[in-house]
C-alpha cells in the first residue's frame, strides 16, 4: 500500500465533519410539549458551535417558564444538535448539556 492509499483510509476513518448545528427544544402549546428546531431543518444550519450554544442559552433564558402553570411559548429541554439531529456535547466540558430541563421547571414533580 502506498502513502496515498493509506491517506485515503485515514481520511475516511476520521470522524465525520459536522455540517452545522441547530438548537432543539420542546415548546408548550397549551396541552402538550411539541418538539421544534431553529433554524428549521430545511434551512442552512448554524456553522459556529459557540454561537449555537450561545443562542440556545439565550433562547432558553427568554422562554423559561417562571411560573406554574406553564404557558404557551415556554420551552423545555433546549440543547444543540448536529445536522443529523444527534445531540452535541457541550464543547467546554465535552459532556451533555441542556437548558430548561423538565425536571427543573416550576410545578414539575422532579
Amino acid at each position, binding site marked *: 500500500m502506498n502513502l496515498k492509499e493509506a491517506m485515503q483510509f485515514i481520511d475516511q476513518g476520521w470522524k465525520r465533519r459536522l455540517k452545522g448545528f441547530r438548537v432543539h427544544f420542546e415548546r408548550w402549546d397549551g396541552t402538550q410539549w411539541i418538539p421544534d428546531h431553529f433554524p428549521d431543518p430545511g434551512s442552512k444550519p448554524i456553522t459556529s458551535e459557540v454561537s449555537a450554544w450561545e443562542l440556545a442559552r439565550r433562547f432558553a433564558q427568554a422562554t423559561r417558564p417562571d411560573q406554574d402553570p406553564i404557558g404557551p411559548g415556554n420551552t423545555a429541554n433546549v440543547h444543540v444538535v448536529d445536522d443529523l439531529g444527534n445531540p452535541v456535547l457541550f*464543547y467546554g466540558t465535552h459532556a451533555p448539556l441542556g437548558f430548561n430541563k423538565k425536571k427543573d421547571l416550576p410545578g414539575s414533580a422532579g
Partner: protein
Amino acid sequence: MKTELERWQQLGNEVMAYGQDLIQAMIILVGGLILIRLLFRYLRPRLKRIIPRESVVSMITHGVSVILLFLVVTAALHHAGMREAVVFRVLALIAIGVVGVIVLFRPLLPSLPFKVGNTVEAGGLLGRVEATTALNTRLRTFDGKTVFIPNRMILNETVVNFHFTPTRQIRIAVTITYDADLIQAKTILTAILARDPRVLDKPAARVFVLNLTEDGVEIAVRPWVKNADYWRTRCDLLEIIKLRLDQEGIPFASPRRRVHLHESALEGAPAGKAPPPQGPEMNPSTPIRKGETA
C-alpha cells in the same frame, strides 16, 4: 467703420434676441445637474440593498450618470439654438477624445491594488474600501471609523488585499507546559478542528510542535477557512481550545522564571534574613534559562 457705440448696440440687440434662450439653457443645464445629483443620492442606497457588490453599484451609477449628463447637455445646447446634429457631433468628439486619452494613458497611470468593496490592510489600517478617488481612498474600519488614506501613501506601502484568494489560514499557537501530555493535546486540537464545519478539508488543517520555548511546548494550530469565516472561526477556536484543554487537564504554560540560590550565599546571612542580591544573576529582572544555575 463701426463706432464703439454701434458695437455695444449690436451686442445689446443680440442679447435681447438670444439672451432669454441662453439663460433658459443655463437653467436647464444647472437644474439637470442638480436633479441627477439628487437622483443618485436617492437611488444609491437603494441599489446597495439590492446589489451587495459596491463595485457593481458604482459602475451602474456612473454609467447612468454619464448618459443622463449627455442628455442634459444636449437639451441645454439645443435650447440655446444649436442644431441637434452639431450638438451630437461635438459631444461624440469629446467622448471619443476622453476615451482615447484614458485608453492611451491607462497603462502609465499607477493603479491601486484593490477595488471598492475589498477588505484590505493599507496604511496600517484594516477595513473595507468604500470609495477611491484620484487623491485618496476611503476606508471603513471594522470598529466603524471612516478613514481617508492618501493614495500616495498606499502606493508607497505594502497593501494586503484579502480578496485575491478565497481562503485563508488561521494561525493559532498554543503553549502547554513541559509536563503536559503532548500527544493527548495534539489529538484534542486535531479533533477540535475536525469537528468545526467551517474548517476546510483542502488544504488540510495541521497541528504540529512549533517550538520548545522557555515556558513550554508551543503547538501550532493551522486550519484553513473561507475568507468570510476567518475572524469568527478564529475566535470560536480560541474559546473551544481554552475550555477543552482546561477540561482535559492540560495546563497552558505561563511565563515562569527559576531562581537558584547558592547555599554558600545563605550561610553568611543572619538567621531568618536572606542575603541581599549580589551580581547580575541575582537580579530579579534577569531571566535564568531552564537548567541554568545562578
